[in-house]
């Protein structure tokens, strides 16, 4: 199965979850997503998602200058973002339960 297609639908909640743990900048978020197992996540997709979540008011952002290189743009979650994360977490649970049930081989139900 093309997991990149699956990823598209859940990237928002995944990014929200990562940022909710701790503030992070673009590639930092990518690295944590990949470390968590979403290895096929596209970097530009993550950056774009961060921008979109920020535009929709779920994230805050601030710039941290760097001595030896370009500045980093950090993202942090806010109250609206946490509410969004909570709602999507519930949605995901119900959806994944439904799909797990649906995909369970017949007679193998517990």
């Amino acid at each position: 199965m093309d997991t990149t297609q699956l990823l598209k639908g859940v990237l928002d909640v995944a990014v929200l979850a990562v940022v909710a743990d701790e503030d992070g900048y673009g590639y930092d978020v990518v690295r944590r997503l990949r470390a968590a197992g979403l290895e096929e996540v596209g970097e530009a997709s993550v950056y774009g998602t961060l921008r979109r979540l920020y535009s929709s008011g779920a994230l805050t952002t601030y710039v941290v200058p760097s001595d030896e290189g370009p500045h980093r743009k950090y993202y942090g979650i806010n109250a609206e973002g946490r509410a969004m994360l909570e709602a999507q977490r519930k949605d995901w649970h119900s959806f994944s339960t439904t799909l797990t049930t649906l995909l369970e081989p017949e007679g193998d139900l517990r």
Partner: protein
Amino acid sequence: MNATVLLDHVTAYAAAVRSHLGDLPPEQVDDLTDGLEADLAEALEDPLGPVATGEVPPRTVAGVTGHPQAASLMDLTLRFGPAAEYARELRTAAGIPPAVPGAAPVVGRAARVVARGGRLVGAVRRAARRATEPLRSSPFWQAVAGFVSTLRPVWWMVRGWVVFTLLLGGLMMASVSSATQRFVPEDVLGWVLLVVVVLGSVQAGRSAVRDGEWVRPALAFFNIIALVALPLALSQSRTMLEQRLGSSYPVYVETQVPVQMPPEDGVRVDGQLVSNLFVYDAQGNPLEDVQIFDDRGRQVRTTYDEGWSQWFLPGVDEPWSFAGVQDADGRTRWNVYPMTGAPFSQWDQDGDGKRVLTAGSALRTPPRPFPQAPALVTGTAGTAGGGEGSDAGRTTGGTVTNAALTTGDG
């Protein structure tokens, strides 16, 4: 890996990504790509970073990790994919529709035109970028680009000067000022303005280099204005300086000067040109062959045509031409009155080009206005206001005043 080289590549790649977002408003592009360089650089320096779909693992790319000495030739598209792909992924994830003509979220005709222009510029830039990709990655190009970029401060100063001339040109239209002040300041205020404008231009150039993109659109506007105005300002200032400095450059100015035509020679009565004079003595009898001079001894001539012109006489149908009179020294005199002549048709031209009468014709005196003039009361002193004997003309008893009359031989 050399951090500076890495950053150069990262900056170039980020610029390429931005160029693929050229259809978006500049603020949105900044918003989308702010911090992109840092993310790209860190992604490159992360040797353990898992590889996303379609991306080539960094360790397989020569020059990125394997051969540091070849780092300056590395191709970031092998790591991140084509910049166009990257930009598309970025904007899709950010919820911005892909670049489709007419799909830009703009309102109003002017905004649409601007957006269309932006897309066009973006497309041109993308095409130019694609076409010049092999050239731009060559060491030669790097050297040339490095050299040119060291010359940028010169352009900043020139740009400042052009803006200064434009400013003064505008001010001059509003007020009265000397023309040369447009190019070279002549007073303290002018110098202050020039220094301020040049410093501003240099500062704008420096901040554009340091911060990247945000000042670019405004600067691009000034750059274009300055580029267009530069040749004009240069040529005009050169002319101006030559006029002021070069005494070896005389400036010829054509002006219209009204020229008074010298009055036509001849004798006029009541504004009308006189063709002949008739002289009568004190008793009113007509005189022949009278020489007339003015008070300076100049001959009084009525004609200057040497006998070639036609003169219309009162009461005579055919026009006449007149002849001069030979004096004792053999000169032809034209101040002998009344002049004799003949009708125009009786004149001809001899082999020497001289005016001659046709055979059978003879010179004669034209008809007099009247055979007899009124007689004068003479011999009484002071009759006409002048002192006795004081006026040469009057002592001879002629009727022409203000001219010396001498009766001729005949």
